[in-house]
């Protein structure tokens, strides 16, 4: 196992540097930098801008900028944010953490919902329930995340109109925006956790929908394949109960790709959460990325790219390792 891990890690290094080079080159595609906008400002003297450019190393040739940047990354320094004049890591740590809440919650939701749905559809193939699930899966795969979030917001508002007219209850059932309530700071720590959880119920579900649908369909297919195979027939012939056959013998091999897929899920959900974060004003990675890009705060943009690329690569590595651990057919020699 040790040498296998080491080899995989070494294999990742060139890819990582390649990705960083590509990201750096792309970030330089447009002339002008963070201070270009300030050139128009009559209150800012050109010498000040020159000094600031020199301070952030923007006056040096591209190649030197790149190697300096890579060198500082290797030392764990992601550069400075020009917009807020503090280390870029301080700027992005918060959004990454807040996106992670959303992503971890929707990952749990994904597994909790998709496994029972997939097993049900496979065991009751062509039943009414199976057809309903498969119909909704097709719809869920076709709905853009951000559109679903907008629909939910509309639904929550509509429900309030009804409850107001019927019971005089003039509150939203679920929060539709932001991550915290306005009185969040006055809450006890426990209330704060509940508050954040309450706010992510809707966006977390929206982020998970497409995944749930895809997962359910693939699991159904896998289960059907295993349920029709010889070792299941043998198990039946030996007199095993349906319960044990379904959950012990068919579900376990069918789950292998999904267990291994956990690693790949985290980074893909970050991308998937992106537009939903914008719709519900969740202060996560994607809004921070768009803001930094608009301000041409290049080191923050690059820092976010570095971190999300690292997450993606580590996720893939975890998947490979898990797959090797779970599936005895894969050898790591």
């Amino acid at each position, binding site marked *: 196992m040790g040498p296998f891990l080491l080899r995989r890690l070494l294999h990742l290094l060139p890819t990582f540097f390649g*990705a960083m080079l590509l990201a750096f080159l792309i970030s330089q595609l*447009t002339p002008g930098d963070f201070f270009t906008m300030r050139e128009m400002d009559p209150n800012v003297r050109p010498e000040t801008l020159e000094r600031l450019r020199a301070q952030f190393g923007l006056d040096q040739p591209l190649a030197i900028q790149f190697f300096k940047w890579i060198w500082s990354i290797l030392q764990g320094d992601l550069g400075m944010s020009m917009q807020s004049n503090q280390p870029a890591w301080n700027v992005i740590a918060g959004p990454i953490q807040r996106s992670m809440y959303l992503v971890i919650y929707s990952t749990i939701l994904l597994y909790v919902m998709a496994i029972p749905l997939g097993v049900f559809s496979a065991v009751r193939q062509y039943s009414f329930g199976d057809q309903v699930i498969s119909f909704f899966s097709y719809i869920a*795969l076709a709905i*853009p995340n951000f559109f679903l979030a907008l629909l939910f917001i509309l639904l929550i508002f509509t429900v309030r109109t009804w409850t107001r007219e019927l019971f005089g209850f003039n509150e939203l059932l679920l929060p539709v925006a932001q991550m915290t309530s306005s009185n969040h700071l006055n809450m006890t720590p426990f209330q704060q956790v509940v508050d954040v959880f309450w706010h992510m119920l809707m966006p977390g579900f929206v982020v998970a929908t497409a995944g749930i649908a895809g997962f359910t369909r693939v699991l159904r297919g896998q289960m059907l394949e295993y349920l029709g195979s010889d070792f299941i027939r043998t198990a039946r012939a030996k007199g095993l109960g349906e319960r044990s056959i379904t959950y012990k013998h068919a579900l376990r091999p069918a789950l292998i790709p999904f267990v291994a897929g956990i690693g790949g899920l985290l980074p893909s959900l970050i991308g998937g959460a992106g*537009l939903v974060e914008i719709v519900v004003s969740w202060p996560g990675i994607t809004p921070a990325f768009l803001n930094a890009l608009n301000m041409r705060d290049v080191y923050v943009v690059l820092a976010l790219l570095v971190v999300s690329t690292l997450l993606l690569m580590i996720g893939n590595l975890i998947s490979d390792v898990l797959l090797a651990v779970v599936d005895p057919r894969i050898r790591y020699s």
Partner: protein
Amino acid sequence: MQQPPQMDPTNLAVEAGPAKAGKTQGRVVWEQFSSHKAALIGGTVLILMYIITAFAGFLAPYGVNEYRRSPSAQYHPPTTVHWRDAETGRLTAPYIYLSREERDPLTRQRIYVEDVEAGPYQIQWFVRRPQASYSILGIWRSDLHLFGVEEPARIFLLGTNNLGKDVFSRILYGGQISLTVGILAVWVALFFGLFFGGLAGFYGKWVDDLIMRFIEILAAIPDLFLLIILLSLLRDPRNPLAQAFGLQMNSGEIFLLTVIVLGFIGWGGLARVIRGLILSLREQEYAQAARALGLSELKVLFKHLLPATASYVIVNLTLSIPGFILVETGLSFIGLGPSEVDTASWGMLLRDATNRGLGIQFAPWLLLPGIPIVIAILCWNLVGDGLRDAFDPKRRTA
């Protein structure tokens, strides 16, 4: 990007030649496809949608950006079309009333009331409106519209947006961009995928290594961020690429740029599979025979190896079109899509719904452009699934 469900490519590629006596492969595939009911329905709906958007100018009563400053019709709800005569209650030709802007006495919100005194305005068929001229497929220019009403009345079947632009007309026009982006991006992905996948599989050695490493690098950066940064920087007319080609970044060029960037992000997976197929196919007897008969290496590649991957490529591409549409709507939604102010796409229309912050409860009709998005993606998925089953010999029904 959403990955299309995979199928086993190996059993497709070798399956060349007539599968059953007397039937060509195309015929077998068509028979299989047409027995797949959901795929047929999906295909029919898609064809209808494409026809409708091609004739968007004729079907839409207003131009894509047409609006009136005064009296404006901002956030006008869908116009009620009356079918019954106001006095006798009998069925008549459809008519509408002039709508008048008022303020809600309690909330001070803008509301619209029907001005019954001004009398009914009949819906007229085949109206000419020179202020909303259009061209169909860039060939026929005309200003004839299927329906319309006499000024000053206006008909908004699906309401209006924050500037008073007709949502119904804009959905029709928006389809022209939203529905073509996927198809065009697929061709770009196909070009890159076939070219680099073919090269890597055929030449092997360092060419293969180089191309495969590049694909890995491209896949290592999250798609959404790569798309956002590429598009937002490339749209700036000052960037070196635009300068080199003398681009001004008008709407046509931004559309092309988006298509190319989308395709560029999406070719990696295809190239990998093509490479794998070519690697196994080039050792097959027929490829060796072609080489022994004196055909040049490149000719073997283009005439014998790449065509053998066709069935896989067709299915893969069909299944990736909905993914491209999904990504395009998302990009348009955050303002980085292929459409500019003088055009529309469905994702961009949904952006209008968020203009009022969380006020979509007062203008829910602005969410309607999402429905054609869902239908289009759903139908493409159905057609793709049908094609996959039709091409896959393992899934064939008798």
